[in-house]
């Protein structure tokens, strides 16, 4: 058994269950801290399914979504989450310039900070960029994806989806399949799921398998049929099409044949294996439409729904000290 929670009674007086200023990654979080965020998100799922979705707890607070890399889904999810909590949400879409982006980055951080936001959500195409900005600003920072490094809210929403569909995470076998090398989703999920006691496998062609990945506590597979055998969850990753020309994989046809999730291949997984995908999907490349659209197996739209709840929970928790919530100062 892993230790899921120290329980409120075991915390010292004045110590709250999520003692982090920012959410920069899953790395560094204790299992019970991850569980705490999931529990908090659970409540927001209920709110979001009702008709009155508005909660004013972030009323008067300014949330800046600074996206240095293109995104539609994640940006929208954070925007909706902020608005449902009553925050004044400002979106700043900054196309990442090819040169001198670092200088722009720190200057932008200082500029953002001068506008006195209460929470900043950042996506950037360079690993570590969000942590760098976080050092320069006075408010909580949420990592919405940095390079190949981490995408913590994606891992939380995936964990929440799995927990709701399977009733638990501990002991499950989860196969993360596809372009693991370039995937921040994979890294954050590996950290979260292993922390919560899942048996995690990663499945990728040899060109997209990161070196020494087993050091992260996962079992690597180059053969997808073996990798998903008996799995409770099959988590597909998006194959970025530009990888096709980088001599990583020969063609989408070949990729589908060996690493795509087809109906036949899914038969090898556990009987009620859950199919997941962080989106947007390349249908017919990493996943067949039959599988993606199977409402009994696929949790893909549910992942999107959980995304809003998780982001509401994270923003609520991270701004509590700032809002003077009792016990969170």
């Amino acid at each position, binding site marked *: 058994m892993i230790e899921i929670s120290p329980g409120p009674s075991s915390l010292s007086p004045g110590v709250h269950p999520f003692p982090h200023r920012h959410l920069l990654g899953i790395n560094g979080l204790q299992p019970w801290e991850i569980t705490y965020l999931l529990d908090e998100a659970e409540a927001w799922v209920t709110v979001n399914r009702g008709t009155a979705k508005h909660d004013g707890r972030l009323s008067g607070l300014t949330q800046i979504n600074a996206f240095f890399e293109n995104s539609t889904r994640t940006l929208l999810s954070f925007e909706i989450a902020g608005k449902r909590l009553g925050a004044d949400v400002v979106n700043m879409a900054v196309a990442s310039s090819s040169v001198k982006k670092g200088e722009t980055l*720190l200057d932008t951080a200082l500029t953002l900070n001068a506008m006195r936001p209460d929470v900043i959500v950042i996506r950037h195409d360079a*690993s570590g960029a969000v*942590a*760098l900005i976080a050092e320069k600003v006075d408010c909580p920072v949420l990592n919405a994806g940095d390079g190949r*490094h981490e995408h913590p809210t994606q891992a939380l929403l995936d964990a929440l989806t799995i927990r709701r569909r399977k009733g638990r995470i501990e002991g499950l076998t989860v196969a993360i399949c596809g372009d693991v090398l370039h995937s921040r989703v994979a*890294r954050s999920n590996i950290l979260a799921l292993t922390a919560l006691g899942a048996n995690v496998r990663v499945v990728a062609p040899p060109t997209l398998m990161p*070196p*020494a990945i087993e050091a*992260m506590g996962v079992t690597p597979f180059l053969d997808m049929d073996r990798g998903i055998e008996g799995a409770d969850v099959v988590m597909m990753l998006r194959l970025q099409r530009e990888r096709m020309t980088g001599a990583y994989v020969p063609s989408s046809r070949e990729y589908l044949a060996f690493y795509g999730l087809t109906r036949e291949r899914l038969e090898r997984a556990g009987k009620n294996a859950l199919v997941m995908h962080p989106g947007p999907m390349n249908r017919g490349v990493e996943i067949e439409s039959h599988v993606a659209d199977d409402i009994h197996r696929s949790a893909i739209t549910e992942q999107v729904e959980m995304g809003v709840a998780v982001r509401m929970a994270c923003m609520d928790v991270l701004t509590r000290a700032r809002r003077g919530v009792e016990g969170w100062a």
Partner: protein
Amino acid sequence: MTTPVAIINARIIDPVNGRETRGGVLCANRKIVAIGQVQVPSGAKRIDAKGTIVAPGFVDVGVFSADPHACAAGGITRVALMPDQSPVLDDPALVARATAARKPDLWVHPLAAATRGLEGLELAEIGLMKAAGAVGVATGRRWIASSGVMSRLFAYANAFDLPIIVHAEDGGLADGAAATAGETATRLGIPSAPSVAEALAVARDLMLAEQAGAHVHFRQLSTRASFDLIRQARKRGVRVSCGVSPAHLLLSDIAIGAFRTYARLSPPLRSEDDRLATIEAVRDGTVDLICSGHDPRGTDDKRLPYADAAPGMAGAETLLALSLTLVRDEVISLPRLVAMLSSTPASLLGLPAGQLKVGGDADLVVFDPDAPWRVDDDKMQGQAGNTPFDGLPVQGKVTATIKGGEIVSR
């Protein structure tokens, strides 16, 4: 006439003969005039070494910046300057200017760019640059992708009797990489290249140098496979030498920590196994010299996301203190360390330096091998203080640097 300088009460280390004696060194008119029991003339500046060491000034091969304050603080009296300057040292006039730049406190010996603009396409005017003062030819930070160009480079530079100083990293593998492939790069999601990128380049260049009969020097090597290739080549009689930096002897890629850009180096910090192999290669003599790789970078170059940050560290001031770890760990003797820092690099470049002899240039360093201090990037003397060793307590401090009979740091 300069005021004579007398160093007394010293342990004198002569790296050429591997000998240690006691006594003093007297300098006058830019030369060493007496060694051993010296009579201090009246009016001479007197340095009482108090039982610490006097040795030839260090010669640092392959610095990216002729940084006089850092060098003086580090006991370095001559540097071989990499051609990666702005503009690139690919023209005789630029080489001549660089040669004169820091005199008299620091002598700069430029390395000529192997190819125009360091683009790896056309040979630069190597002969004319030698006439202008270049003491070697270097490929710069990059590798030359064309084996044809490299082959002609070895043949041509060899005709001018110049060593060819190579950066060994196969660009096809290392392009875009900011770390060595392994657990750290995987966890942090940093683009990485396998360490074999270095050995591949070493293997190719050894074969081409062997064919041309040229002297190839690998500026900084860092992997077990590379050192094995050097050992094999030596047995075949290839004219090869190589250097290492203290960073690769003391740190592995774990030092990257959470995107610590001060630890972003080229070649990148390697695995622990490669680090141990580097130490072993120093012990068994495979490694000829130790260089600082001095490449000071300001915060504008370093306060960036890891992969965007410029590689390099300020190394000149910590060169001795970090290298002395090898002596304390009994990897090598103190005279051998001094040789690796002075006489060996001098002889690689054909410089009349790195030795203690009457009549020779009075380039000296006085240092206390046991003096403790703490590396502090805010207190570095050089152009910038970016070092992955910031905060590290170290032992071994330069107490005086003498260049051409003049005290340049004390």
